[in-house]
C-alpha cells in the first residue's frame, strides 16, 4: 500500500502521475520521444541554425557547407531553405495544431457522448445516427470536401479534424457513459437531486478518464498524420509556413534525385507518432496494473 499524505497538493498528484510512468519502459520511451519534440518546439529559435523562410542555396545535399558560414546539416530544399531549420520550426506547427485539434474534437465528442450515453433513447438515436453518417464517409474525401469548401487555414484544419474525429470519440464516451450511469454513486447523486449536467461531468466523466487519456494519445498521433496528409495534398497551412507534410509534398517530384528532402520530414512525423503510440500503449499497461 502506498503512503498518502494528508493534504494532497496538486503538484504532489502530478508527481505521482509521472512516478507511475516509470512502471512501464514503453511509456517512458514514448514520453521521452514526445518530450524531445516538445523541447525542440519550445527552443526552436535557439536550435535552428538558419532562418526557415530565407532562400539560401537551392538543392544542397546533407552536410554541405553554407558559404555564409555553418553547415546545412540535412541539406536544403528546392527553394534553398535549410531543411533542418524547417523541420525544427515545423515542430511548432504540428505541436500547436495537433493538440488543439484533438482537444476540440474531444470537447465535441465528450459532450455528445455523455448526452447520448446518459439520456439514451431518442437523444442517443439522433446523435448516433449523425455520428454514423459522418463515419461512413471516407476520411480523406471528407477532408477534401471540407477544406475545399471553407478554404485552407490553421483554424479550418482544426475544424476539419474535429468534424471527422468527434464521431469516433463520441462512440467511446457513449459506451463508457452507458456503463458508468448504472453505478450506484450515480443513483446516489440522482436521489439527492443533482442536475443532469453535474452527474455527467462530475460523476461520470472523471471516472471515464483512464480509457480517454489512452485514446487521446493515440488519436493525437492520427491527427499529426492527418495534418501531414493535408499538407501533402496542398490543403495544409498556406506556404511558406514550415509544415512537415508540405515539405514532403514539395520534395515528391525530386525524390529520385534528392531523397533527403522527403526522408527527413518523414522521419520527424513517424518518430513523433511512434512516441505518442508508445506512450499510449504504456499508459494502458500501467492502467491494467492498477
Amino acid at each position, binding site marked *: 500500500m502506498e503512503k498518502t499524505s494528508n493534504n494532497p497538493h496538486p503538484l504532489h498528484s502530478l508527481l505521482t502521475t509521472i512516478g507511475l510512468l516509470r512502471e512501464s519502459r514503453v511509456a517512458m520511451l514514448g514520453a521521452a520521444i514526445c518530450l524531445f519534440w516538445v523541447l525542440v518546439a519550445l527552443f526552436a529559435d535557439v536550435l535552428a541554425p538558419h532562418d526557415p523562410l530565407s532562400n539560401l542555396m537551392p538543392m544542397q545535399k546533407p552536410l554541405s557547407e553554407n558559404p555564409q558560414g555553418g553547415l546545412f546539416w540535412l541539406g536544403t530544399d528546392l527553394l534553398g531553405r535549410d531543411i533542418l531549420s524547417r523541420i525544427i520550426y515545423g515542430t511548432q506547427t504540428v505541436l500547436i495544431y495537433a493538440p488543439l485539434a484533438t482537444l476540440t474534437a474531444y470537447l465535441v465528442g465528450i459532450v455528445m457522448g455523455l448526452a447520448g450515453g446518459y439520456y439514451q433513447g431518442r437523444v442517443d438515436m439522433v446523435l448516433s445516427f449523425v455520428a454514423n453518417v459522418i463515419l461512413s464517409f471516407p476520411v480523406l474525401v471528407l477532408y477534401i470536401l471540407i477544406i475545399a469548401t471553407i478554404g485552407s487555414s490553421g483554424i479550418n484544419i482544426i475544424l476539419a479534424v474535429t468534424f471527422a474525429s468527434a464521431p469516433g470519440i463520441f462512440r467511446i464516451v457513449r459506451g463508457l457513459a452507458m456503463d458508468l450511469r448504472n453505478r*450506484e454513486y450515480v*443513483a446516489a447523486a440522482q436521489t439527492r*437531486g443533482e442536475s443532469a449536467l453535474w452527474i455527467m461531468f462530475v460523476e461520470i466523466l472523471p471516472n471515464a478518464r483512464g480509457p480517454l487519456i489512452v485514446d487521446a494519445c493515440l488519436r493525437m498521433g492520427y491527427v499529426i498524420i492527418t495534418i501531414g496528409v493535408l499538407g501533402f495534398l496542398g490543403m495544409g497551412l498556406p506556404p511558406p509556413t514550415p509544415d512537415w507534410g508540405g515539405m514532403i509534398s514539395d520534395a515528391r517530384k525530386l525524390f529520385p534525385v534528392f531523397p533527403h528532402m522527403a526522408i527527413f520530414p518523414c522521419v520527424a512525423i513517424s518518430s513523433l507518432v511512434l512516441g505518442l503510440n508508445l506512450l499510449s500503449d504504456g499508459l494502458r499497461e500501467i492502467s491494467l496494473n492498477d
Partner: protein
Amino acid sequence: MTENILEISNLSISYFSRSGEIPAVVDFNLVLKQGESIGLVGESGCGKSTVAMAIMQYLNGNARIVGGSIRFKGRELTRLSAKELQQIRGNEIAMIYQEPMASLNPTLLIGEQLIEVLRCHQKINRHEAQAQALDMLVNVHLPDPARVMQAYPHQISGGQQQRVVIAMALLAKPALLLLDEPTTALDVTVEAGIVDLIGELAARFNTSMIYISHNLGLILETCSRVNVMYSGQIVETGAVKNVFDRMKHPYTKGLFDCIPLPSTDKHSRPLKPIRGQLPLPHQRPKGCFFGPRCDHFQPGRCDSATIGISSLPRQPDHAVRCVRWQEIDLDTPQAPQQEASGGTGHGAELLKISDMQKYYEVHDRSLTALLKGDNVKVVKANENISFSAHAGETVAIVGESGCGKSTFAKVLMGLETASSGEVLLNGESIADKHVTERRPDQTRAMQMVFQNPFDTLNPSLSIGTQLARVIRKFGAIEGKAAIQARVLELLNLVKLPAEFAHRKPRQLSGGQKQRIGIARAFAGNPSVVVADEPVSALDVSVGAAVTRLLMDIQQQQHTSVIFISHDLSLVRYLADRVVVIYLGNIVEQGSTEQVFAPPYHPYTEALISAIPVADTTVQKKRVILEGEIPSAMNPPAGCPFSSRCPRKIGSICDEKKPELTSAQSGHKIACHIPLAELLEVEPVFALNQTVTVSPPLQPEPLRSATA
C-alpha cells in the same frame, strides 16, 4: 476400515509478488476419510480457495507450495506430472465453483459438455456416454432432462445451471469433490434445494467432500467436521457439533457472535462484531494472527512465539490454535450489554404506501410480434404494494431476486414514478413525482444506502468532497468551515477517523466504504432511509459491525428504515415489521414475531425454512420449493405463488388471486387456505430441548417441540 482419501500435512502456500514472498496458507493439516465431508469456513482472504486450488494443483502462476505434502489416495499430488494430473482432475477430484454460468461453456449444448467429460476420462462410445449423462441429470433432479441436454446454458436458470455443474462433476464418479461456495450466487430457496441435493448425492455415491463456505449454517447442514480458518491458518478444527456447541477459539466465538441466530433476537443477544480487520498477509502480527482483534489478548504470551495447534484432552479430534484456550471461558456470555430495549414506542407515520403499482412496457420489435399485433408487453414489477412506516421503525422488505424489491426502492426514491396508487411522505403525495420534481426537503427526507460497497462512492472524489457535496446540496448548512465541521461530525457518527476525509474511496475497505455510504444517507437528517441489501456484499464480521452501526444511528436519530433484504435471519434480527413480496405482490405482512410464527403464508414458510441455521440446538423443518420464480411478464393468472406452492389446494389457486386478509391485528396473509388450517402448521424452528442452555427471553416461534 475406512481409508483416507486425502491427507494434507503441514501445507504452506505462498504468493510471490514484487514485494516478495507473501504466505497465504501456513501449516495446514487435514485428513479426509472415504465418504466424509469437511467444511472449510472463514472470511474472504483467509486462504480457503487457495487450499482448494492447491489440492487441484491448479494454483495461480505466482503461487507456489513452499512446504508440506498433499497425498491423495496415497499419491503425492505435488510431485505428479502434468499428464498424471490430467488423469486425476475431473476424474478422481472434481470441483464446483461459485458462479455456475462461468463454469459452463456458453457456446456448447449442455449434453455436449456432459458427454465430453465422459469421453475424456472413460473409453466409452457416444451412445453410452449420452445415456449416462442423461441418467446423471435425472439424479440431480432436473425437470425434463432430455430437454436440458439439448439446451444452451443461458436457456436454463441459475439454479438449474448449478445442478448441471454438479452433474458434470459427479459424472466421472470422483472420489473427492471440492465445493467452493457453490450456492453463494443463488437465491435462498434455490440454495436450500442445492444443499439438499449435495447431501443426498454425496451419501449415494459415497463421495468425500470439502465444502468451502463463509456461511456457518450451511456447514452445519452439509458437513460432519469443520475447519475454521483465519488468515491462512486453521484456528480450530473438530466435529461440527463439538465446534459449534463448545467452541474454544475466540475467533470461532467471534464468528458466531456476528450472525443472528433464530434462537435469539436483537434485545437478548445483540450482534457483536469482531473489531478491526483481517490483517494483510505481509502485515500479520507475531504470534497469534488474531491477537490484535481478540478480546482475550495477553501481551507477552499471545504475541511472543508461533502458536501451534493443540488437541483437547479426551477429544483428540477437536484441536485449537490458541495459547490461552484452557483459561478462556467462552461459554458463559459476558455481561450482556442490555441496551434499554428501546424502539418500543414508534413515532408518527412517516411513509404510507397504498395500492402502489409499477408496470413497465416492453416493446417487442420482432417481425412476428408486429404481425400478431402484440408488440407491447407489460412487466408487472410491482402489483399491489401497501404498507406504512413510522418514525424509528424498521420495516423489512423480503423476497428473492426478481420479486420487485429494487423497483419498489426506485419508485420510493423517485428514480421511477408509480403507474398507479399512492405514496405519501409526511402526508404529501410523491408517487407521481420524479426526484427532479420533488421539493428539496422531500428529497432530503428520504435517502438511500446502496448495496455494493465498491460501487457506492465516486472513485474520483475524496470522501470529504463527496460528503460536503451532499451537505451543500441539502442546503442545511452554509459556509466552508461549518460544512467541514459537519463532515467530521458525520465521519464520527459512522466511527471513522477524521483523516478519512482526505482519502479516496480506493484506499478504504469494503466495510469502511459502506460506512461512508451510511454517513452520506444520514447527512441531511432524513426521516426515512431505504437500505437496499446494505451488508450482503460484506464479510460476516464486517457486516455485523455495519448492521450494528446502522441500527445505532437509527435509534439515535429516530429514523424510519426500509430494509430491503433476502437474508431472513438478519431481517428477523433487526426488523420491527416484515413485508414479504413475491412477484410484485405482498403475500404476507405483519410484525416480525407474527411473520416468523404460524400462521405462515406458504411462501414465507419456505423462505424461513431455507435459512441456514448455525445452531445445533435448533431443529428445522425443511420445505424445498420446486421450480423457478415465474417471469413478471407472464405471471400466473391466480395466486402469484401457485406455480411453486407446496400447499396448493386446487383450481381456485390457479384462477383467483387471493386478497390480503387479516389474521391478527396488523398481520395480513394473501392465501386461499383457510386461516384455521394455516394456524395448525407447525413452526419451522423448534428447539432441541436436550442440549439447550436455554437462552433468556425466548422469542415467539421457538416453542419447544417434541422433536
